[in-house]
């Protein structure tokens, strides 16, 4: 098996609330391998988003280690973490994903510009990717002119366009109806498999896990279950909906 694009080793994140420690992430360990799309599920408050924030190098853990594409986050200063987010990680968020004054193509191009890619070459790459996501006719649309699903697909393109080692998606389907949500996740999964990077999708909707390769279930900051076979995942998704 190829080297993991993400290694999480005994990760702990503790917040102090009213003087009492709350373990938002409690001794979590797992790996994500190239081409693998992992679903991180759990009820609200289970620690999914805190974990994702640590993996994104946006939050420092209390203990443990995270390696993204072989780079130890604990050894990095803020400047290095910014560079890592820019070059090795792709993001989609629940909402407020896109820069409102940039077109779909420009929103995706932002990642290439941040990484210093030649604009001409990047532009073709962006256009190809958006076309594959069904937005070939929307390259010059502003975010306000697009539906929520279209905006999420632009965000997915932005997360993938610079070939990151790891893509992190925080509730990418939260603002979408079921049909659109399934389409977005299916497209997302397809692109991750094809490009060979790793992906983690945080969702509270178990039905969205049909297209992932593995599901990690969290509760109270811990991973309480792992579903690694297609049969288990399908059963989990069907049970939810």
């Amino acid at each position, binding site marked *: 098996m190829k080297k993991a694009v993400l290694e999480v080793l005994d990760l702990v994140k503790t917040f102090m609330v009213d003087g009492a420690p709350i373990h938002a992430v409690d001794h979590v360990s797992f790996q994500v391998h190239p081409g693998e799309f992992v679903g991180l599920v759990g009820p609200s408050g289970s620690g999914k988003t805190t974990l994702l924030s640590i993996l994104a190098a*946006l939050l420092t853990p209390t203990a443990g280690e995270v390696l993204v594409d072989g780079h130890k986050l604990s050894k990095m200063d803020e400047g290095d973490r*910014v560079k*890592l*987010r*820019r070059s090795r990680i792709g993001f989609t968020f629940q909402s407020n994903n896109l820069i409102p004054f940039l077109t779909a193509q*420009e929103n995706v191009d932002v990642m290439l510009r941040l990484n210093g890619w030649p604009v001409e070459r990047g532009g073709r790459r962006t256009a190809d990717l958006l076309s594959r996501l069904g937005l070939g006719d929307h390259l010059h649309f502003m975010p306000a002119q697009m539906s929520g699903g279209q905006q999420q697909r632009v965000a997915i393109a932005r997360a993938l366009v610079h070939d990151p080692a790891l893509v992190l998606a925080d509730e990418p389907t939260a603002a979408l109806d079921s049909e659109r949500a399934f389409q977005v996740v299916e497209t997302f999964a397809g692109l991750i498999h094809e490009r060979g990077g790793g992906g983690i999708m945080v969702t509270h909707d178990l039905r969205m896990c049909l297209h992932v390769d593995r599901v990690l279930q969290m509760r109270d900051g811990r991973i309480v279950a792992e579903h690694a076979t297609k049969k288990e995942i399908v059963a989990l998704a069907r049970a939810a909906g």
Partner: protein
Amino acid sequence: MNGLSFPVYIALKEVWRNRGRFLLLSLVIALITLLVLFIAALGEGLADGNRQYIGNLDAELVVFREKSDYIISSSRLETGTLRAVRRMVGLENAGPIYFSATEITSTALPIKVSLLAAEPGYPGMPTVAEGRDFRGGGSKEVVIDRNLALRSGLHIGDGLVVRSTQGPEDRFSDLEVVGIVGGQSYLFQPSMFVAAETWEQIRPQTEADARDDTPYPHILAVRVSDAGAVEQLRSSLLAQVPKIEVADVATTINNIPGYSAQQATIQTQGFFTLLIGIMVIGGFFQIQVLQKVPQIGVLKAIGSSNSAVGMAAVVQIMVVTAIGVGLGAFMTFLFSLGFPPTVPLTFNGVSVAASVLALMLIGPVGGLVSVIYAVRIEPLRALRLQ
């Protein structure tokens, strides 16, 4: 925009796509620019009107009567002082200057003028641009300044009548214009120059003054032979010539009655206008940043550095300020074309450049708080991930 750095690209895209909003702010800056430039021009115009003649003096030092506190109207020098001063070593030349005011009554509307006397060829007498210098010995010849020529329509060879109250009576004197010098306003009035004896005959004076025909100069303008030895000559003058005090030209200007207070008022107005500009720009950009917190959070989360976010904000502020100042300068130019010549507006290159520089600085200064706020935005909080 392909070759631009990321901060410049993102800043200009936002300005262009929201050009209506940014143009409104630029228009506000343009109005502030208009106001600042007009205040500066008014300050310069008023200063010119008050000090133009003194400012143009071809001299480094000015000799006053002792205890006159460098105030021209308080100084009257004894007749021997000029001779004593002219004997000093290190002095190139010295000329007496006599000040008064009168009124030209022969024009369609009476014009109040500064009536000055000086010796042609000596410091204090401006170089004649047209015609010739007046003759001495009580001749009825006058040299007028450009401002008076423009306002009165007088030309070389024209006659004019001045009215002066001498004792209990008004005296009317006929003079002939023989020359024109450049602008030499003094105490907000255009100037005319005559010989000292003529000045003594036609100036307003009390009954007691009228009994003495000797003209006493108010001040002496002194030109030094070595520009580096001004202080040395000043010390020598004070040591060797009795009953005098000596000032440089700048001190003389600052002691023109009302000059300093007027300039301070104008400068305060300009300062407060700039302050208002800083607050307007600061308020606008702070609201902008507050509205863009999630957007800045996304940029930071996907790998935009704090310096890039800060630089983008600075670029926006600079662009909007530059457009506003440019528009304001153009509007000022258009307005200035329509102002009557009686409004004392003088667009001096140095003061306009200083004002434009100050206006260009109010953007970054005003937007500083918003830039700092933008740099400090935490992506986690901005995206509500925490």
